[in-house]
């Protein structure tokens, strides 16, 4: 009886913990700081967090399938540079060029991981280096910043409805589609099955290789898209972005309740996790005299708290493998 209660609490916390903490922080922020709950400030947080959130949607699929994708930070900056470069040929090229290139990166990584059964960690680490190298070679070692030359493309990143930027709305649309795929289709079930137990899934006839390839392809595409949107927002292909971003993305996914061991998790928590990181950064800035270094301390503390809580509340679920 106690076990079931604990299990249920654990599962509830895993699914909604990030959202609850996010809500609590919003309340604390509102009570403590005048300049926190203003439309402009909340709009800034939402818009700035949407790029991380879009990448984290892809990462959620990867992690639920039992893998990891370290290449997303590099694909994000590569996507941005390609989008800015492509914008001279119009909005279509600006969007397609990063999607095609980053999609190919994801696809190749997926094929290697699925066909050779090499560790995703190594394969995507190679992808991280290759994508950043490609970005540097396109920009004269980072010295050239391409400027966005298409106004329509720039407006996708810069437009806003009531202080909330279009990128946030794009993120919501992507989230909606992704939730349907993950929760309502056979593909989504296969992703969970592979992450839960790959061999068992294969025995049950789940197309393991194909599912994995699609998962890494999705992750690459979304990283490229997020990079492109960010380039539109910044009006330029900034070359110093994305370093270490993969770790923030993984943190958002894990804080959002997806198990790093695969097989369990969801997208709502991921988005809450991404927003939570943005809110923490904003709140730390609100406290006078507090160094920004504490942002990482607090984010790290949250991550630790979430993982420990998973272990304490949902120990049974974590152990079965």
């Amino acid at each position, binding site marked *: 009886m106690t076990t079931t209660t604990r299990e249920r*609490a654990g599962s*509830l*916390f895993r699914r*909604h*913990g990030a959202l*609850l*903490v996010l*809500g*609590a*922080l919003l309340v*604390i922020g509102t009570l403590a700081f005048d*300049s926190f709950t*203003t439309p*402009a*400030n909340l709009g*800034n*947080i939402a*818009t*700035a967090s949407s790029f991380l959130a879009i990448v984290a949607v892809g990462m959620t699929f990867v992690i639920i399938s039992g893998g990891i994708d370290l290449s997303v930070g590099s694909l994000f900056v590569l996507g941005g540079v390609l989008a800015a470069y492509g914008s001279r040929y119009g909005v279509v090229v600006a969007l397609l060029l990063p999607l095609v290139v980053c999609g190919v990166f994801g696809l190749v990584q997926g094929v290697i991981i699925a066909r050779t059964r090499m560790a995703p960690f190594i394969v995507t680490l190679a992808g991280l280096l290759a994508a950043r190298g490609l970005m540097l070679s396109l*920009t*004269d*070692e*980072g*010295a*050239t*910043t391409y*400027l966005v030359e298409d106004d329509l493309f*720039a407006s996708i990143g*810069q437009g806003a409805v009531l202080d909330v930027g279009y990128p946030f709305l794009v993120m919501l649309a992507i989230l909606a589609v992704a939730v349907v795929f993950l929760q309502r289709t056979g593909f989504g079930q296969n992703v969970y099955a592979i992450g839960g137990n790959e061999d068992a899934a294969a025995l049950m006839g789940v197309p393991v290789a194909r599912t994995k390839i699609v998962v890494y392809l999705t992750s690459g595409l979304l990283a490229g898209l997020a990079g492109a949107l960010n380039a539109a*927002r*910044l*009006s*330029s292909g*900034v*070359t*110093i*972005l994305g*370093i*270490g971003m993969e770790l923030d993305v993984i943190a958002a996914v894990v804080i959002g309740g997806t198990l790093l061991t695969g097989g369990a998790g969801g997208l709502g928590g991921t988005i809450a996790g991404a927003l939570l990181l943005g809110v*923490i*950064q*904003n*709140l*730390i*800035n*609100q406290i*006078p*005299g*507090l*160094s*920004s*270094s*504490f942002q*990482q*301390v*607090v984010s790290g503390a*949250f991550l630790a*708290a979430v993982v420990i*809580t998973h272990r304490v*509340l949902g120990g049974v679920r974590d152990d079965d493998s």
Partner: protein
Amino acid sequence: MLRHRAAALLGAAALLVSGCAKSENTATAPEPGGSDAQQQVVESPTGPAGAGCTIARQGATAFDLKTAVVGFSQSEKEANPFRIAETQSIKDEAAKLGIANLKVTNAQSQFAKQISDVQQLIAQGAQLLVIAPLNSDGWEPVLQQAAAKKVPIITIDRKINARHCADFLTFIGSDFVEQGRRAADQMIEALGGKGKVAILLGAPGNNVTTERTQGFKEQVAAKAPDIEITFEQTGEFAREKGQQVTEQLIQSNPDIDGIYAENDEMALGAVTALKGAGKKAGDIKIVSIDGTRGAVQGIVDGWIFGVVESNPRFGQLAFATAQKFLDGEAIPEKVIISDREYDAANAEASLGQAY
């Protein structure tokens, strides 16, 4: 349900705990004093009349600096002396002027965070922004929001690529080309106008690297055609990278006579590499730019020939420029801060003023 509340409380507690701690770095800050103030004189006078940016043209309404919300956005982690001295100088000058509402953020070397930081400062009602930009491009979201509220932006130490007056008020910084030229003069003196020189380039993609390289090469070509630049590689402004590149350099070009390091950190890395290779102090002449205490000590110890300063003490000049702007004066696109120079003659005596 109880568990959820516990989790929320845990989160709140984490925030509070961190709230109790204070920022720590004051130890390495430059000493305030007369010499300090002297260093901050403007080298170039205000530009020609009509070319400057006046408050009428920019569109802001005048305000009193003392009571205004002033935002300062630092770009990099305060792990290097330049950044520590820079932030401290802004804070000290604000305190001296009685600016009560100075908000300081640090982007921790993450550009996305710096954009968010400055947007947040604008949302918090900043009436003046002082920004040390991490990158020169990509400021569109900030510039739009600042322009909508007519907030004047002063950038220090690096530029923002944007329109003078419409987007930013002024850029205050060193003349990096001139720094390169002065470093070349020191190198020419060190080598007697003849020899082989290696350049440890700064991080690619910013104007500091390009201009320090340009100034050095121009001056060497003009004044000492017998000096040959035989090796150029980036040390990314980092000590360990400077060391690594120098180790390769000694292997591939053992006949090198001088090393021009585009900042002190790389020069100190080079010193470590030379020590490791069994060289003696003064065997290879090192000239660098920045003027940190470690490098000036290197001159005293004989490992470094000379250092051209890159002055990080922007506080006085930044707020004086802002005050002039508020008083209706025209502000030029670029204000140049003066840099000093260290060599064997003055290094020991000047050690206290190095940052």
